[in-house]
């Protein structure tokens, strides 16, 4: 197990290196005149040249990347070109916000989709059809439309929630709940649709297995068979889908955070990318890639725990 984890972590480091190299190259190619963009149209040519020199933009690309890489290995990701904030500080201050949205959404997806999927698989008939129809609908409607609809109905018309902004949990737990509920629901709806389908399929498959018949013939109640054995077997594929969902939700958070003006990684990602704030974008790339590596590792471990056969492979 230890060697497994070590191997995964090592491949994670290689992945980080590759992703950061590609990201830097792409950002650099689309860079344009960064100093002019930082200073705006009112700055004189001399000031723009001075800023360019201060940022080291007049050096060769390889030197700039080498410097960034050397800094990154020491844990120094530099400062944002557009706000002057340390990249590490900028990311850590926003990480908890995004994670609370994404983890909240994953929990919501897991609970509701498992309930819906199992219900559809066991009941069959009209329940199955309803769940499938709802799933397709949830899948088909774009996340941002759902978010806008939720804001209009629950924040602007009913005034149950705040339409924009974020309250830290430590400042006010109820304020926090009010500020994250709509974004979490907006994020989760698409995911619920996908995972419910997956759970339904897995449970239907598992119910057809021989062991179910065997267990039933030994007199075990249907509920006991489903909840103790079928779900455990159907859990593996569902977990894999949840892991994919988690990565997808990080992307979905970008749009949702913009719409709700929530100070998470997504919001800073949009700002930094459109501006060409290379240090900030590189920091975000490293942070999200690391999250993805860790999540995948955790999912693998969980699957191993659920199904010992996985450990052998």
């Amino acid at each position, binding site marked *: 197990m230890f060697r497994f984890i070590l191997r995964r972590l090592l491949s994670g480091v290689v992945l980080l290196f590759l992703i950061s190299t590609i990201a830097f190259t792409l950002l650099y190619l689309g860079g344009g005149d960064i100093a002019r963009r930082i200073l705006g149209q*009112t700055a*004189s040519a001399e000031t723009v040249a001075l800023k360019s020199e201060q940022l080291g933009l007049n050096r060769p690309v390889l030197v700039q990347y080498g410097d960034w890489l050397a800094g990154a290995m020491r844990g120094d990701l530099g400062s944002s070109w557009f706000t002057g904030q340390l990249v590490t500080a900028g990311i850590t201050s926003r990480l908890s916000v995004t994670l609370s949205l994404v983890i909240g959404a994953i929990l919501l997806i897991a*609970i509701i989709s498992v309930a819906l999927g199992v219900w559809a698989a066991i009941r069959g008939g009209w329940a199955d059809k309803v769940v499938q129809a709802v799933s397709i609908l949830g899948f088909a409607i774009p996340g941002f439309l759902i978010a806008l609809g939720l804001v209009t109905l629950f924040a602007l018309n009913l*005034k149950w929630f705040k339409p924009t902004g974020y309250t830290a949990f430590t400042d006010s*737990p109820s304020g926090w709940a009010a500020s994250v509920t709509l974004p979490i629901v907006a994020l989760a709806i698409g995911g619920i649709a996908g995972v419910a389908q997956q759970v339904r399929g897995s449970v239907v498959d598992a119910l057809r297995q021989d062991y179910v018949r065997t267990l039933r013939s030994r007199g075990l109640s249907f509920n006991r068979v489903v909840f103790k054995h079928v779900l455990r077997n159907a859990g593996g594929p569902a977990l894999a889908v949840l892991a994919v969902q988690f990565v997808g939700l990080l992307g979905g958070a970008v749009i949702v955070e913009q*719409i709700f*003006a929530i100070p998470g990684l997504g919001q800073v990602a949009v*700002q930094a990318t459109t501006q060409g704030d290379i240090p900030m974008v590189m920091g975000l790339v490293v942070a999200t890639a690391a999250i993805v590596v860790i999540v995948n590792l955790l999912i693998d471990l969980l699957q191993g725990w659920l199904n010992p056969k996985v450990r052998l492979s």
Partner: protein
Amino acid sequence: MFRWKSLTAVVAVAALALTGCSASDTSSSGSGSDTLTLGVIVQNTTFEAANISFANESPYGQAVYDTLLKEDPTGKLLPSLATEWSYNDDNTVLTLTLRDDVKFTDGTAFNADAAAQNLTRFRDGTSPNASFLAALGTATAVGDTTVELTLTQPDPALLHYLSQNAGMQESPAAFGAADVQTNPVGSGPYILDTAKTVVGTSYEFTKNPDYWDPDSVHYDNLSIKVFADSTSMLNAIKGGQVNGAKLADNTNNAEVEAAGYTINPFELDWTGLIIFDRDGSMNPALADVRVRQALNYAIDTKAMLTAVGEGLGTPTTQIFPTTSAAYDEDLDSRYAFDPAEAKKLLAAAGYADGLTLEMPSTSLGNPAVFTLIQQQLKDVGITVNYTDTGTNFIADLLAPKYGVTWMQLQQDADWALINFELTPNASFNPTKYQDPKVDALVATIGTGTEDEADAALKELNAYIVEQAWFAPWYRVQSSYATDAKTTALMQAGNAYPYLWNITPAS
């Protein structure tokens, strides 16, 4: 094995999160009477006074820094940290008398030496407006409360600049501090609460308890929230989460008003064409004033205002603002839309068979604008070839790579406008075009008496309109929304009302 207990706990937490909504907490929304919450469309580039920006970023700087001088909403100078100011006879030495009762929030005293250091640092820094102090030779402390500015040449706009970012005063003890960009130390009305601030998103300030001018501070707390996305800004307005907000454009004005807000209109920018290549070095045709005038006649500016400006603005063919002595109402209609006249002028200039112009386009602008320019110029025989410059738009203009371009520029105060768009070294005269008549008029504006300068300004404006250096279409209306509890006085020449002019409605 499914852990039912833990699953139940998870459900309970989720339920708590969901039902937390009914106990929705509005106490931290920051719109109480003791807190002023402002919506802005840009994040703060830096708080370091030497590099600080202004315009849309002005509320950040004004919250934490005092300026040497102030201006009222019409642009009239008022004392601030400097109580008196005077020039020598040839306007090359400015002497400022400073207050002696001001302390920075780190306890350091403000004095003439601090002022001198701040001025020099700003001149040598990388503020977008560093050139405001380009004429500053030396700044010297003469005693504790007198600072003397020696200029390399007279600068009629210097006092105005000292009321903006060029005059902002930072504690010398903070110069070079590691966190100077995000943790300002000034003597201003508010102190940035760095613990509650999320850089790039929301900036929280508390009142400076020792502020020397408490009457100008109308709120105990200030919150500046960035809305990069116009939908989230609109939602914040509809939800009553901001007291005042600069709107990115006018597309949602009706909804903003329906939400109980007042739209405070002001005209800051002009939009239209800039004809950089007045000497024809890139395209010989543009050296002919008749061709430049034809570009003015060829565009239906009123249609442009309706089609791309939501009808909010005023048609004009001059670049000076209505508040300027240079402004002449008649010049607003000097080139009324007349394609026949445009064709006639082109024919007279020898381009009866047509003419081709290379122009830049960018996705940063409204795509309809570029299409409409192309269509309308085609109607008079001018073929426009666009090159998409993407995010390099301004860099390419100033390179300079194009003789004519669409652009939107702010209408600064006179001397700033002249040095930004007209003089040979102006940023927006990248071909460094020089005209002896313009040089002479600018010299008079720089050194003459007030009457002489005003007369020269009028003449200069009329001349560049006649010479068609530009083909302006209209002055763009900007909109500032205030809620029922708040009043804001718009500031001449600035994109954001000055902080102390945003007050509780009486």
